[in-house]
């Protein structure tokens, strides 16, 4: 299958989207971009390719003749989660290796000797609970390895440290160092290899594949083999787009990409707000999704996603935990500064005054979104429909405040669209530009490096 590839190299995360020739999404991938932009790009692309192969496999199985489709249905249904579980286990194994390397460097020896058994126990607990993340018994907030493993690690570490023998912060610090290396290392196994493991796991656990298990597996493997992906065009965008191994003509503005991606997801879109790690963008688009005006924050990153990152760090929480905590606020503390640099100071000051962290967090979210409202006003206001994109969309408090502010400042009837895959909108827009280039015979080939 011919695919257009869009890569959005953001300051915090890197996203990749593969579209088929009809503009339909066949695969998406995301990873952390903090340490190494080039590797992040390769990892996100690989992840999107994997997702695309899974998605094409599902399509191929869906198109099997009736009787074969029936026989493979149960395996087909269970495969995507099983596959993701296998990937998670691979990364977990990488993480374990990195954690052990990190703990080996801890000084003094007495601390290391205390941390090592604690770490063993944390790893053991993480392994034990891993399957529950993929068996439908727990609502997964994120597919992002850092979030999944981070939440599992912190939960295990809190339990292990409850007795006070080992300081929690030291264990948490090990995770922070180790996960960065895992995210920026390409150690993925070949697709077929992981697929066979996933199939084996499903068939060993699920009686549905029997009594003709071998025949069903052959059908699935044959379907997988017939779904080659041909990446025919690439477009890169995002904060780090200049560092992509792409020729200049394959790089597009993130403003245009976000506008286009949002419009593709919601064709009624006329205003787009994108809050990324480093930038906030207010974008107006016409009925075709073409940008007509835009405003961005200036060089100060106040009120951008990174602002929440600082807050999370300050509280020792994962970024994805902030929204749910803020939603438990009893009241919204008025916060005057959205300065990223001073956010920590403001937070500490208010905590010292005895204010609840949930209430402070609610205030911080409101301050952040008020700044976004100012940019929206400068760009020409909020017009129906209004689509919110970028990583901050995943934060339920941010989206709640945005809904309230839009109703308050504009029409209460304004439709606010938030796509479950909002974080991918820039990459989706880029992939649409890639398809344009392919159809027009334009574009160029990236200079990928092997990892």
């Amino acid at each position: 299958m011919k695919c257009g590839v869009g890569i959005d190299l953001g300051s915090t995360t890197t996203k990749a989207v593969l579209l088929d020739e009809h503009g339909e999404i066949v695969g998406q991938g995301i990873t952390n971009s903090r340490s190494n932009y080039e590797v992040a790009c390769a990892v996100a692309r690989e992840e999107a390719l994997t997702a695309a192969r899974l998605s094409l496999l599902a399509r191929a199985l869906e198109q099997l003749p009736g009787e074969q489709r029936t026989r493979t249905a149960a395996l087909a249904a269970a495969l995507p989660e099983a596959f993701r579980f296998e990937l998670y286990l691979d990364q977990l194994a990488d993480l374990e290796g990195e954690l052990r390397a990190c703990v080996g460097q801890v000084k003094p020896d007495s601390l290391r000797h205390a941390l090592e058994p604690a770490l063993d126990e944390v790893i053991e607990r993480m392994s034990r609970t891993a399957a529950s993340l993929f068996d439908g018994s727990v609502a997964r907030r994120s597919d992002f390895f850092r979030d999944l493993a981070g939440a599992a690690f912190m939960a295990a570490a809190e339990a292990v440290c409850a007795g006070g023998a080992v300081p929690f912060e030291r264990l948490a610090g090990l995770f922070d160092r180790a996960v960065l290396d895992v995210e920026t290392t390409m150690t993925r196994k070949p697709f077929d290899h992981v697929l066979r493991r996933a199939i084996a796991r499903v068939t060993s656990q699920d009686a549905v594949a029997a009594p003709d298990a071998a025949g069903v597996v052959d059908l699935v493997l044959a379907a997988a083999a017939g779904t080659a992906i041909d990446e025919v065009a690439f477009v890169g965008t995002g904060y780090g787009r200049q560092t992509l191994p792409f020729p200049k003509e394959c790089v597009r503005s993130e403003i245009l990409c976000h506008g286009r991606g949002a419009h593709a997801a919601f064709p009624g879109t006329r205003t787009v707000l994108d809050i990324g790690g480093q930038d906030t963008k207010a974008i107006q688009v016409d009925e075709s999704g073409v940008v007509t005006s835009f405003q961005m924050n200036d060089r100060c990153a106040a009120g951008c996603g990174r602002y929440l990152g600082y807050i999370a760090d300050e509280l020792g929480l994962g970024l994805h935990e902030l929204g749910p905590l803020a939603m438990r606020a009893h009241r919204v503390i008025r916060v005057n500064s959205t300065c990223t640099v001073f956010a920590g100071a403001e937070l500490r000051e208010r905590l010292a005054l005895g204010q609840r962290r949930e209430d402070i967090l609610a205030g911080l979210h409101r301050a952040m979104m008020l700044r976004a409202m100012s940019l929206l006003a400068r760009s020409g206001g909020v017009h129906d429909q209004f689509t919110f994109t970028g990583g901050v969309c995943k934060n339920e408090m941010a989206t709640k405040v945005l809904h309230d502010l839009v109703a308050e400042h504009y029409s209460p009837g304004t439709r606010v669209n938030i796509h479950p895959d909002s974080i991918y909108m820039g990459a989706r827009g880029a992939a649409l530009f890639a398809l344009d280039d392919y159809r027009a015979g334009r574009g160029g080939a990236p200079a990928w490096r092997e990892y």
Partner: protein
Amino acid sequence: MSTPAAAAAGAKDESQIRQKRMIGEHFERLARARHDGRKVVYTFVPGNLTELIASFGMLSVLPEINALQSGMRGRSAAYIAEAEKSGHSEDVCTYVKCDIGMLRSGNIGPTGTKLPEPDLLLLSYTGCFTFMKWFELLREQYRCPVAMLHVPYQPDGVITPSMRAYVVDQLKNEVIPAMERVSGRRLDLDELTAQLARSAAAEDDLVAVWESARHRPSPIDGYFGGVYYVGPIFSAFRGSEEAVAYYRELRREVDARMAAGKGPATPDGTLAEERYRLVVEGPPNWTSFNDFWRMFTREGAVAVASTYTRVGGLYDTGFRHDASHPFETLADYCLGCYTNLGLPARVALLERYIREYHADGFIINSVKSCNSFSAGQLLMLRELERRTGRPGGFIESDLVDPRYFGKANIENRIQSYLQMVDARRHGGYA
């Protein structure tokens, strides 16, 4: 895809070499002023009375020019820090802080020679309230006489007879007597009219240079290149023989460039391909001037006209210094500077440039610490888009404080804007 920036960076044009020499000589004259017994007048670019100052044999110092030169030479950060140390806040006009910092650091001018202290502070108040505060600070420092020329703001873009009479009255009864006291000379009307006649000749040539940008490709960049072109006429040289010669030479070079079908000179040589024609509003950033310029040249974007290059005099709407009415013409000059125009007149001027120079759109560089320029710029943007149907871009930086120049952010906005122009030019994507 071809790269629009530049065929090989060539040698400097004769006019550039001449300008550099002129500036060097001027600062040498300033350095020798005390020795030569010449009086020194500090004054501002908008509404500068250069011909009048020169007719008394006095020398001009323009603090904004010194500040921008310090910015271009990488000295402004230290000067601003020095000013902040003495209590000036972060939000104060950075030209002011740069100047104050330079003063506190020994008042060494842009060419490395020490500037003489002023014998007169001539405050031409044209649309910028900060000017008054700036010279208040300098007065505290130098304890020298101040002559204030209050120029009425043009809210409707019209100079009324009473406005003109008000300025002429001040010239005759405040400014000229102050100059006579400081210089020890009586006004030499013949010398003043000779100066004014030379100004008009230089202005004719400058307007021809501006209007060359109607040609495709434009042989000039009317913003980044333009700030060099206005150097002599906005500063100490208008009315001098040197300025007449400079503008004659510049016009000849631009005509030759146009005849040869060449694009504008850039920091990297001649621009090879003109892809976008833009009008620019607002001052440039001086601390990263060439980086800023390259953000445009790399994309093949040329500024065909700009308003910043009209702050020290608006000649392409027809004004010329008129030697036959010396006081009235000085009044009209001061009243007509771009900084003295209200928003409707600024919008009308930009609209005219966008249409007459066949621009694809316009960019506003909004300067945080310059309220007189920046207030209302978003309203101007919307109104211009409405009137012309052409897209506006908005970027933010500063005059001479390098802390406010976010390279990635500005480049992102410029590229986004140009890609938006492209899409709209082609009626959509694909």
